[in-house]
């Protein structure tokens, strides 16, 4: 395993069980849609696919990836992600690729099925590395992963209290690093960040606003929002806090079932839902905004993202029944159109004052 130890396995979705990747001796590496390479994925996919998958494919096309990235794990999370997996296998045929079938609901049969998928992942990673993965290793990785999740949560609370130096931008930088570095390195970094900030005084830096959406990994996005007079009291993006939700691991005999149940029932991306409560995403957004004392909500979705675009009207309808104003923005993973959006955010904040 030694020669494989530092190899990276890429992933693109917050549902990826990265603790199992870590347990296999690989470094889980989130391939973020952040790159300066030219836009060209549309010739393989279609220009109307979401910018997240297009930019990730652009990185593959231009080999804008770490040299030690030798495989990818894709989640069957949405149409665009499935098509990205297809394209990846064509563009980088030498990579190991696995697609995990992720149910859209979290019922009894779904949890059992996904647990088997996690077991398949474990076997596949073992085959890639040449070494079996023991339950103890997974348990240790889950424990480390949970420490990272705890730290991210603490730093998120610092942000809400206005005591995190560097604010939302800094938090996103840390999360980006935590999704691409060895767990131990991430823990060292996050521990230091907590120590450096915990004695800072709480401050009210602007109008308290709750952010939600899908993919927005650019740290500058958060500082631009804050520059408009916003204090981010909480956020819910695939690329931010939703990436790190604690996993249970109480019984090594049933650990895949435990992890499966937690992943399928964690605070969801729009693609996962509870059929007993259709449109729950709308109620969740309002409930979280209220619990955080937000005076406004800003939703940011990528263009062409069906899971979100189809459900935002439900959020809009539900928010109309409350006294919390909502601003919906659409973007492409970059800040290229932020000039226009800034005007809208400033007007929104002005209205909230």
């Amino acid at each position, binding site marked *: 395993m030694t020669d494989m130890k530092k190899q990276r396995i890429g992933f693109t979705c917050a549902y990826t069980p990265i603790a199992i990747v870590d347990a296999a001796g690989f470094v889980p590496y989130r391939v973020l849609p952040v790159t300066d390479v030219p836009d060209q994925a549309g010739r393989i996919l279609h220009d109307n696919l979401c910018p997240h998958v297009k930019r990730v494919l652009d990185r593959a096309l231009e080999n804008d990836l770490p040299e030690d990235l030798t495989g990818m794990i894709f989640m069957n999370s*949405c149409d665009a992600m499935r098509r990205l997996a297809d394209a990846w296998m064509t563009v980088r045929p030498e990579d190991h690729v696995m697609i995990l079938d992720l149910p859209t609901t979290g019922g009894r049969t779904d949890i059992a099925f996904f647990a088997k998928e996690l077991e398949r992942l474990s076997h596949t990673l073992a085959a890639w590395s040449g070494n079996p993965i023991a339950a103890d290793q997974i348990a240790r990785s889950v424990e480390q992963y949970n420490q990272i999740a705890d730290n991210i949560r603490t730093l998120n609370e610092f942000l809400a209290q206005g005591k995190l130096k560097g604010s939302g931008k800094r938090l996103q930088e840390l999360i980006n690093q935590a999704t691409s570095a060895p767990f131990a390195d991430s823990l060292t970094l996050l521990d230091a960040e907590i120590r450096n900030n915990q004695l800072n005084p709480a401050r009210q830096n602007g109008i308290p606003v709750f952010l939600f959406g899908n993919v927005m990994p650019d740290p500058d996005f958060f500082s631009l929002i804050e520059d408009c007079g916003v204090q981010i009291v909480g956020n819910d993006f695939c690329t931010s806090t939703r990436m790190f939700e604690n996993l249970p691991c109480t019984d090594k005999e049933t650990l895949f079932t435990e992890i499966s149940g937690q992943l399928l029932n964690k605070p969801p991306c729009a693609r996962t839902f509870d059929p007993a409560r259709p449109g729950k995403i709308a109620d969740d957004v309002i409930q979280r905004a209220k619990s955080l004392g937000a005076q406004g909500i800003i939703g940011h979705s990528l263009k062409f993202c069906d899971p979100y*675009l189809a459900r935002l009207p439900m959020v809009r309808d539900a928010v109309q029944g409350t006294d919390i104003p909502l601003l919906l923005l659409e973007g492409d993973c970059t800040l290229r159109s932020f000039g226009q959006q800034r005007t809208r955010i400033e007007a929104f904040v002005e209205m909230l004052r």
Partner: protein
Amino acid sequence: MMKQYFDDLVNGIEAKLKEDPGSMSPRKIYALEVAKIGRRLYGGEERVAWCGVTAPFDLLAAMGITSCFVEFIGAMLASTGMVSEFLAEAEQAGFAGDTCAYHKSVLGAARKGLMPVPDFLIATSCPCTGGLAVMETLARHFQKDLFVLNIPQEETQQSVQYLADQIRDMVNFVSNHTGEALSEDRLREAIAHTNKAREIMVDVYKMAMNVPSPANGRLLGNFGIVVALLLGTKAAVDVATVYRDSFKEMLEKGISGIPDERIRLLWIQNRIQFKNPLIDILETQYNASIVSDELNDITWDPIDPDDPYIGLARRAISIPFNGQGSRRIKHLQQMAKDYKIDGAINPCHWGCRQGSGARGLISKGLGEVGVPVLNLEVDCIDSRNFAEGQLKTRLEAFTEMLDHRSSPWEA
């Protein structure tokens, strides 16, 4: 409005057939049976379920449920020229213009009260994410219970069992709403109808492969996807039988779907659902015949009446839109070979991430077997941006190119 439309359609076709039995064509019988589904959906007298595309319609029929995938309504609204106002309604309600117009039109129709209130909804995760989202939205809109079938991406013993278990749970869900248990006899009868229709459709598709083909751009358009709504009923067997008999007679008499067929085309994914002249142009100006649609195929084995859930699960998993793109491409390559296809047309329905997202790889895959693909940029439902002139030019250039090259299937 829709009830009147379907009533008129059923009455009109029946009157025509009564008046002139010689005018009976397979397409007319098919249209009649499909219109009857519409009439039942909008009649207000039957239990109705709005569904996803890969729901087990035969099983639901056996439980006394009139069920239909919602995209069917989008296609109907487009074909009748009424869709624009419903698209506008959905867009005003915040549904993005970039999303699938099949779904937007249905959401607009629901908001305008034009979709019958269902007894419940059954969503399917295949073929698309957008379809699943629209079912969740409709469930919230109608305040009706929703059941979700997660269709696994690949067929394995484990995945088939997972889906079979979900279908069993679905039966309980339906029974809880109807207060009636599933009758084993009715299920057996439905499965027998499905298997019989399947057997005949295999023959129909085989005959359509003939050179020249008895099929043309209209006879089997949308057939494979819509006929699923009839499965489990005698209507499916009747429709398939009329097609088989008609094609058999045509082949015996040496009649082809279009005169002097020169170019054989495969239509990928969705047809353009609103009235347009493209098929006419292909057939009359270029002797180009669309001899098959991508979904006009039987990808599943007969269903074992003693263990139907496994067979129903396998069928749903087997559809070409499911799973990895490589599987879909392999299926298209096989169809191209079976039908001796000269060229394929992919409309790349705007807003369809599932379908158009694979267009580059489909072009490459069919190119590997010598079949060029024409990728169009068209919304199959929304006629507001239909660029007829541009599309005509591209079709003309494509067919001229095909006309000047030899068939990839010539020895």
